[in-house]
């Protein structure tokens, strides 16, 4: 078990400095890229080895503010599928973006917020609304948490999803007010039922009409409210601000970020995440400084973090493909992700994906293996535009014997048992050098190993 009781929180979140004991290796760089994004290609890792972790993370965060050119292409793609009215195509457009983005950290954070402010196209149906929410999450992915909650509180897709498109003075709708406190900011136990009712009154008059947010002042209850110890004639924004300002907010978010980036287990104590909470508070709830502190910390590069997460289906599939610079049938990948339990734009409930062990059962494991199989055996799938054999040639990889350890370093947290390596080689004979089928088969078999699902 991952026992954290003997770790000093203050040391844990101090910057990692490579040492003789824990040197900066390509394996550790691969760990960073897996967690901060969806894995790195061999070329990216070679590049990373020349830099410090701190430098890499700074670059990742800086990048989220650039790269307009790629964004334009990916946005156009999404825009073209909207008129179809089919949100499933939107899911494929996101897969395209995940595969190609030069800025994986931003997409990773967008995915994090998609799970946090979970909204499903299953109910919302309108792809434009879903797309606009997705853009909102992307734009604020590493921005200010307070601004993000304020914006999401007026987001049409969110309010449709939570049946809160009409908030009337006479019948305040408590649904959104509850979720803001329970699932978005504070967590259970940090508010009362009365707080929910009072906050709901702040939202009266907020409506979605013709797919747009608007305030209907005739339906707003302007009288006094009392929320979490504060009293006043609050409107919706002020109500949200009171919730955001609670100490429990940065605590709730930091705990979730650590779980997302560092380790699935165990449950983290308040003391353990306190240094991160301070960072978030000191930075006026900016998200980037906390993410940066997490990704450059001693704890992040320790044995308590490496291999301590179960890959999500997206991390599993997109990660496999990005490590090999692969492109493929995005529609099929999107469908496969759905089968494996992570349909993009289709989270299971307002609670999002629980992650960790809940990703795994007989059905999702078979769905993962079958998805990898389908994509790898599809001739449409290319690796930097080439066959796998030709692509690997760039790295002087010709045979299965060379491929196995090479691919293992890119995608897995620990070396393979030599017995397993031998068995794979024996069972997938290469008839000739760069036998395309065997090379793809080897990737497929490795991707089915239990240890492959760890990040």
């Amino acid at each position, binding site marked *: *078990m*991952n026992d954290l009781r003997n770790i000093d929180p203050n040391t844990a979140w101090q910057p990692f400095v490579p040492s003789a004991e824990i040197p900066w290796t390509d394996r550790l760089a691969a760990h960073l890229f897996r967690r901060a994004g969806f894995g790195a290609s061999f070329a990216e890792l070679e590049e990373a080895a020349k830099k410090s972790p701190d430098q890499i993370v700074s670059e990742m965060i800086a990048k989220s503010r650039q790269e307009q050119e790629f964004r334009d292409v990916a946005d156009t793609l999404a825009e073209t599928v909207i008129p179809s009215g089919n949100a499933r195509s939107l899911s494929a457009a996101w897969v395209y973006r995940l595969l190609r983005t030069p800025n994986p950290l931003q997409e990773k954070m967008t995915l994090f917020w998609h799970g946090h402010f979970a909204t499903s196209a*299953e109910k919302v149906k309108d792809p434009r609304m879903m797309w606009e929410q997705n853009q909102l999450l992307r734009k604020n992915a590493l921005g200010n948490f307070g601004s993000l909650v304020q914006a999401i509180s007026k987001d049409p897709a969110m309010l449709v999803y939570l049946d809160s498109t009409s908030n009337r003075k006479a019948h305040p709708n408590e*649904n959104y007010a*509850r979720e803001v406190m329970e699932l978005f900011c504070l967590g259970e136990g940090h508010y009362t039922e009365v707080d929910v009712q009072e906050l709901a009154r702040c939202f009266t008059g907020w409506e979605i009409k013709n797919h747009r947010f608007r305030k209907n002042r005739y339906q707003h209850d302007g009288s006094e409210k009392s929320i979490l110890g504060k009293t006043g004639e609050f409107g919706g924004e002020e109500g949200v601000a009171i919730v955001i300002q609670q100490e429990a907010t940065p605590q709730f978010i930091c705990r979730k970020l650590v779980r997302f980036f560092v380790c*699935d*287990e165990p449950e983290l104590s308040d003391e353990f995440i306190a240094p991160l909470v301070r960072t978030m508070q000191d930075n006026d709830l900016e998200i980037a400084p906390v993410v940066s502190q997490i990704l450059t910390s001693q704890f992040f590069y320790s044995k308590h973090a490496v*291999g*301590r*997460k*179960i890959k999500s289906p997206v991390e599993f599939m997109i990660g496999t493909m990005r490590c090999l610079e692969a492109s493929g049938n995005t529609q099929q990948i999107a469908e496969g992700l759905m*089968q494996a*339990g992570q349909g993009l734009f289709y989270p*299971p*409930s*307002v*609670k999002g994906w*629980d992650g960790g*062990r*809940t*990703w*795994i*059962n*007989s*059905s*999702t*494991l*078979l*769905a993962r*293996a*079958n998805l990898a*199989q*389908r994509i790898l*055996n599809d001739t449409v799938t290319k690796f930097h535009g080439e066959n796998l054999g030709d692509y690997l040639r760039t790295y002087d990889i010709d045979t299965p014997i060379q491929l196995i350890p090479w691919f293992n370093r890119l995608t897995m947290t620990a070396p393979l*048992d030599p*017995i*397993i390596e031998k*068995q*794979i080689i024996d*069972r*997938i004979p290469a008839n000739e050098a760069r036998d395309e089928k065997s090379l793809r*088969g080897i990737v*497929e*078999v490795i991707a*089915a*190993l*239990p*240890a492959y*699902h*760890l990040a």
Partner: protein
Amino acid sequence: MKSSISLSRRQFVKTSLGGCLSIGVGTAVPSFLANALGEQVKQDENILVVVQLTGGNDGLNTVVPFQDDAYYKARPKLGIAAKDLLKEGGELGLHPSLRGFHELMQEGTASVVQGVGYPNPNRSHFESMDIWHTCLRKDKKRSDGWLGRYVDQNNGSLSEDVPALHVGGGKQPLALATRNVRVPSLNKLTDFQLQGNHQEVIEAVLETELTSPASEKGGLLDFVQSSTTSAISASKRVSDAVQQYRPEFKYPETDLARKLSTVAQLINSGLKTSVYYVELDGFDTHAEQVDTHAILLRDWSDAVSAFMKDLKARDHADRVCVMTFSEFGRRVAENASGGTDHGAAGPMLICGGKVKSGFLGQTPDLTDLDDGDIQHQIDFRQVYAGILRDWLHVSPREVILGQFPPLSLFS
């Protein structure tokens, strides 16, 4: 296609394991294989299959009180003549489409629970369906369903095979919504089988991997390893089952029958899933109801009876209970369009080898209506409670979120 090598290896494993066990030498058996074998032997867990009739089934024309004049008075056009009904003695007759179900009743393996509903009935499809799915009304936060709670609360004791399965495409019913354990939907059996050219390599490599000493006990890798064991063994069992499967009775060519045949194959494969959920849509019969309703009931009855016969032939009938419900019944009086509008209480239909057969509850009183609708006399949560307590063997209270006296459904 599965090659003979794989089959013979499998045969070998079975035989040699059998030999080992019979002379009491079990320790040398690799856990991966022992596990697969163990799961094949142990198949005694009870299974619940839920069939949802979506749209509001006209209960009064499903189970007909033909001796009640009020019935024919309220339904001059839609009333079914006594001579056309399938009778089981007594004052009730079944819709002529329910021949298959009628046979099950005659065999003593089916029952009708009369007048099931809940207080202050809601006549919106969605709202009423949500109430049936969650056991909660709109004023409460409904983030999980009753079967979802069953799964979440019993996760520890359920196997690593998926605890519940939704068979069918489309949106997953709220009843299966969970907080922790994911419930998958499955459309085709191939979703549950390892596909491609390398499945045997994968199986072989995994057998080696999984028999190597366990990593940190209880850790993540250990967990993924044991889940993989279950997955591969489930895949093998489903593949074998599909290969060997010959339906003992021909299923009708309907969507529901296809789904139930899938469920039968999964049960037959030894999958340790305890809840299956399927739907049949189209019961919202506001106009020209006669033919539509007859077809829907026939689809349901023929599919369920083929399913039960199939299970019986394979010796599974005694551990399967099929529970059929709809979100509400329909108005007692027919409308001017040859149909019926949204109503309240209706019958639930229960089938299974261990089901207490016959009609449970009082025949609805058509002279004492609530706003034109049949009043409920049995709360649907009593039925759930009976199934949870006596069939799935769990305490109902936390699942149905309240105390309702369990209805005794099984003999």
